[in-house]
């Protein structure tokens, strides 16, 4: 749809666009590389430069001198700092994040094991945010300045203001402890644990693939509360942005034209205005999805959800720096990657940005 309007709007578009699009692609790639260098420079600084003695941080202060010396050389601390950094980058490019002290496994393996749980949580939370937030935002925009608009605005501001970890606790108290509507912390009841072989690591999918519908229901019952809690912010954000995007469109002249031509109010809102908002919305959704991947840290702690946020937090308390920094890098890369991707999508879909 957008393609036809694109070529219709500017006749010279198809001829001129590709080259400038390649240029902007290169720009995106360049800033991706730069951001990655910045991210690793910071984790490198935190891990190797900031601790007064990185060797002591690894071997402990009771290690004999020869062990100390050995680790000192292993870390390459006798070399200049930029050589150390390049070495660090080399290790990262091979997916080597070091070994976790806590689990005695390579950090990369740990993260791959914990990541699907976070992915599942964040995805369902985003879906909930989209399903509720978009209609709310459209409803508010259509009723601009009247009470539905104010209600949505206040709900949105509350969504921005509430501490998620606290909301999660209150949610557990009400819906799990008092009402018994949902299952408690964790991903599954102990009874169901370990029955389904993890294939994707996303329980809902794994259970559905093997036809274990009891497990599917149980997993969903565990998932619904943390996902709703985590989705609160997304919902508020999406509703607010939908409202402002829709207002921009509804004030345009083509909407007036559609109305004059006798299009129904439903068609004006959903077929004319909303379609033009879609591209912007996708960008926004991409951004919130990325922020949920990191924002799930607190929710995971409250719901004992075995995801990457909990992994980072637990490692932090065990002084497991490799695991903390490895987790930071992986989340950071996902975060930056998704942001860039939604930016790219925006450029692809919107001819004016091209």
């Amino acid at each position, binding site marked *: 749809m957008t393609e036809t309007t694109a070529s219709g709007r500017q006749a010279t578009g198809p001829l001129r666009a590709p080259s400038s699009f390649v240029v902007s692609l290169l720009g995106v790639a360049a*800033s991706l590389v*730069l*951001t990655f260098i*910045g*991210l690793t420079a*910071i*984790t490198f600084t*935190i*891990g190797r430069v*900031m*601790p007064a003695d990185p060797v002591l941080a690894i071997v402990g202060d009771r290690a004999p001198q020869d062990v100390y010396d050995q680790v000192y050389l292993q870390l390459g601390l006798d070399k200049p700092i930029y050589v150390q950094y390049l070495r660090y980058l080399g290790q990262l490019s091979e997916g080597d994040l070091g070994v976790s002290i806590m689990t005695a496994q390579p950090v990369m393996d740990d993260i791959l094991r914990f990541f699907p749980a976070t992915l599942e949580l964040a995805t369902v939370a985003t879906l909930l945010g989209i399903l509720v937030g978009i209609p709310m935002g459209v409803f508010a925009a259509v009723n601009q300045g009247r009470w539905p608009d*104010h209600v949505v*605005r*206040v709900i949105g*501001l*509350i969504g*921005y*203001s*509430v*501490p*998620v*970890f*606290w*909301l999660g*606790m*209150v949610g*557990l*108290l009400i819906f799990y*402890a008092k009402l018994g509507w949902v299952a408690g912390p964790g991903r599954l009841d102990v009874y169901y644990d370990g029955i389904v072989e993890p294939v994707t690591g996303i329980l809902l999918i794994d259970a559905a693939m093997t036809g274990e519908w009891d497990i599917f229901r149980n997993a969903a019952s565990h998932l619904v509360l943390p996902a709703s809690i985590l989705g609160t912010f997304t919902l508020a954000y999406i509703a607010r942005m939908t409202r*402002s995007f829709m*207002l*921009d469109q509804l004030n345009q002249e083509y909407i007036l034209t559609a109305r004059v031509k006798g299009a129904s109010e439903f068609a004006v809102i959903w077929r004319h205005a909303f379609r033009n908002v879609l591209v912007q919305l996708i960008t926004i959704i991409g951004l919130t999805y*990325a*922020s949920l*991947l*990191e*924002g799930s*840290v*607190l929710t995971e*702690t409250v719901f004992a959800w075995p995801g990457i946020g909990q992994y*980072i*937090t637990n490692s*932090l*308390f065990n002084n497991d*720096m490799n695991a*903390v*920094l490895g*987790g*930071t890098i992986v*989340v*950071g890369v996902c*975060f*930056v990657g998704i*942001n860039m991707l939604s930016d790219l999508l925006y450029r692809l879909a919107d001819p004016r940005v091209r």
Partner: protein
Amino acid sequence: MPGVGTLRAWLLAEAPGSSSQARLQRVYLGWLSFSRNPIAMIGLFIVAGLVLVAALAPWITGSEGLQPELSNRLHPPDGTHWFGTDELGRDIYDRIVWGSRITLYIVSLVSIIVVPIGLIIGIVSGYIGGVVDSILMRLTDIFLAFPRLILAMAFVAALGPGLENAVLAIALTTWSPYARIARAEALTIRNSEFILAAQVQGVSTAGILLRHVAPLCTSSVIVRLTLDMAGIILTAAGLGFLGLGAQPPTPEWGAMISLGRQYLIDQWWVPTVPGVAILVVSLGFNLLGDGLRDVLDPKSGK
């Protein structure tokens, strides 16, 4: 002495007689449109209430809420203990009131660090342009692209848990939008005639930046800062909840929730009250910021 009526007339006069009158008039008109907005007024009321409570803490509480009183553990809310007592028998009302000082301390400290850094980087970048601009903006983009809470956690992990380190970590992940704002303002005004006039008069670059460019960024920065306050409070509370921010027995609200967590089911008030306090205060800042944006920044008001 002019009466209230004449003061109002003076403030609303069509042709101001002096620059100070013009400035006061602008403030007054802003206030008029701000005070017509009920949502913004509620926000102002909450924030003013927070400041007042923090200032009056010694006079409106019975203790600093630090002394354990084990005979009085987990006492439900009643006439003497309005919000009940916690697991060590400390009065939760006292702790909430003293905790408001910590909240204010955190947001002020973060603002004091973040605003000057962001302003300087942004203004220099926008005004000077060229290579300097490219380098500084790349740096800003890098910080903008980072996941905030995780990075703050990593910083705290390296520096050690504590209130000041949490503030530092939050500041490091918060300054970049201010640089963006300041740069945008500097770009729009660097070619204006009054800047040219200042240059012709021989005002130094630093002088122009400080006296002419920086003041024009103030309103957007204030709006952004007010809207950011809630995020700062929530991040600080989150770090406190994880045990990485303020350490016990400091009555920081997030840490209070964390300690009260195990009493949630039977003594609900222990973790609930500080949560409500965080919600109310960050809501206050959000409402205030929303209203301020409508007044100070009409471009993005829609």
